[in-house]
């Protein structure tokens, strides 16, 4: 990919640093098993690969968590708030319909007013998309240091008696710094993207925006055939459909990206997939024919944290010494929308 000329020669966007925030309160399988009679704790672990997940405190929003993650990033010393000139918040649980939560974060974090700020509405594909936006802004010279925040409180969107999703999702936020650095070629990219709105109804919060505003009707609880309780203001997921979509599209995306990048599987050090649940990841690993050492799992103590699963996994890998200069990764985010994206990352 040729340098398009806005940066000095040999300058490309890259991931500089990451910091996570996990809310204090946790929800264990034991606590969930107490609510769901036919689902003992061991069964939940076996089915999902998750032992416990973090849950935002009452009144703590996704952008509150994003704020903590950003502060943790600044505390790591690689960047100061005053150096940031663009904020992207990826969340499906914003503080308000308007104003934009990223604008509020500009003020809370003491970032300059001449910084751009916007929210994007994506879930599991959000981190990879976010990297593509950040790269675009940096390599065209529109911004120099992008603060990419992923944060979600799916726990709030889930009905307490909907075990189909309550066992899976956890809350978290990660702050990622993307900036320009010396390199011979691109460090973030190439990318492949995927979108299929025919799958919207399979992972959805139906009521609460403008297609279906909240009414007395939308607050009515219904119980499905499996005994899960929810209203149309809560998250609904058709697990089977989502699983089927994933098995079809993710391998295609991975192969397309390898082709596009002119690489073979062996030239990728690690495949970091969206940590949806253990069962799905195992199925994908087999279908993709990837050795288990090359596909890290980071879900046992955090659950599916939506757009934060990939960066949380990167942080864990970094701690384990798996990511060093020159490590080449493929990141693959996929899910709600349906939306999916994959990228090659050269550290």
């Amino acid at each position, binding site marked *: 990919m040729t340098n398009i000329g806005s940066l000095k020669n040999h300058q490309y966007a890259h991931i500089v640093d990451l910091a996570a925030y996990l809310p204090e309160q946790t929800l264990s399988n034991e606590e969930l098993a107490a609510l769901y009679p036919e689902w003992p704790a061991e069964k939940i672990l076996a089915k999902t690969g998750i032992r416990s997940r973090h849950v935002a405190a009452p009144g703590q929003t996704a952008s509150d968590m994003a704020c903590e993650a950003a502060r943790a990033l600044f505390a790591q010393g690689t960047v100061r708030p005053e150096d940031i000139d663009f904020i992207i918040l990826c969340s499906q649980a914003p503080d*308000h319909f308007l*104003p934009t939560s990223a*604008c509020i974060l500009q003020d809370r974090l003491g970032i300059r007013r001449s910084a751009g*700020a916007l*929210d994007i509405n994506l879930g599991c594909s959000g981190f990879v998309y976010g990297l593509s936006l950040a790269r675009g802004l940096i390599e065209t010279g529109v911004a120099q240091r992008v603060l990419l925040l992923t944060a979600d409180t799916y726990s709030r969107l889930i009905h307490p008696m909907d075990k189909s999703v309550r066992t899976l999702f956890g809350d978290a936020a990660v702050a990622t710094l993307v900036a320009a650095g010396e390199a011979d070629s691109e460090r973030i990219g190439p990318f492949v*993207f995927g*979108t299929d*709105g025919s799958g919207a109804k399979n992972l959805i919060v139906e009521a609460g*925006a403008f297609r279906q505003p909240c009414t007395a009707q939308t607050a009515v609880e219904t119980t499905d055939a499996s005994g899960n309780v929810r209203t149309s203001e809560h998250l609904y997921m058709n697990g089977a459909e989502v699983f089927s979509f994933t098995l079809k599209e993710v391998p295609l995306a991975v192969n397309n990206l390898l082709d596009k990048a002119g690489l073979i599987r062996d030239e990728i050090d690690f495949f970091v997939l969206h940590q949806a649940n253990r069962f799905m990841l195992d199925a994908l690993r087999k279908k993709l024919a990837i050795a288990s050492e090359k596909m890290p799992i980071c879900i046992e103590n955090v659950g599916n944290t939506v757009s934060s699963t990939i960066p949380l996994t990167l942080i864990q890998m970094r701690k384990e010494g798996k990511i060093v200069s020159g490590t080449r990764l493929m990141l693959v985010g996929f899910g709600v929308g349906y939306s999916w994206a994959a990228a090659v990352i050269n550290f």
Partner: protein
Amino acid sequence: MPLTGVEIRGISTAVPKRVARVADYTVLSEQEREKFSAGTGIEERRIVESNQCTSDLCISAAQDLLEELQWDKDSVQVLVMITQTGDHPVPATSIIIQHKLGLPKTCAAFDINLGCSSYPYGLAVLGSFMRTLGLKRALLLVGDVSSRLCSYNDKSAWPLFGDAGSATALELDDSAGAIHFDLNSDGSGKDAIIIASGGLASKNPATPDNFAEMEVSSGIARNSSNLQLKGADIFSFAISAVPPSIKRCLSAADWSVGEVDYFVLHQANKMINDFIRKKVGYDAATALSTLKHYGNTSSVSIPLTLSASAEQLRQGGRVILSGFGVGLSWATCNVTLKPDTVLHLFETENVY
């Protein structure tokens, strides 16, 4: 640093058929209505029927534009939707639109939450995305159904807002003029334009009580799920922040005020825009406006105004676009439009 090589091939804007005239708004006395129109410049707006959403207006606009440009649907590689009034909290509206428009699955799609500053931000984000990834063709959809946010009994909000949805076709083209951006944010002003209560995971999840309308003051009654405006704060912010932003952009582009063919500001109200015009020092004849018949159309006021100005822009021209408001967020950019850029404005009742 300017964005180079990205061309606007066309902008199509769809508005709902229903007309709401200030003259018919009896919450205000006749004298108050006259004063309102004189001060804001608004005489009527287009508002949706209760079942028409932003996405419906944007889909209409996109279909019109694709047809006019004769773009093969399979050639669209990115779709970005900027709105604060999407279809569902989850998933993103752009993805649903991908499906309804019949765009390929390889098309990237995401939503951005911004309001009045949307258009310059949208060009910056989508333009830079296209350039770095070599994606030749993109659709930038911008729209809002703000009328559905307002309480009819709130005289400080109801008569201001109109609804619309626009589609802009962007294409990589080395002959395109450079676009300079000035992007800004100030969250300390978050309460100037806000919807206090929201969905389950929001700062203030709505409860059944929230739907009861409360009288805030004479002529202003609303519930916490309605839009709240602090007119004085918005005015104060706009007149102090926007002129410097426009000047910085002119300076970066090395354009003098006299070299600009048209200034297209966010259409909030006439008083603000006249004040900005005097401060920057441009001629009234170069200020394009759609306040009179379309009101404040939030995120889409800039593309709507461009769509409405096909005559003036037939030969192309140098334009300054400046959006400012909710967030607080504000942004200015300069664009050189080519002759015969498609500019359509039409009405639709379609629901998809």
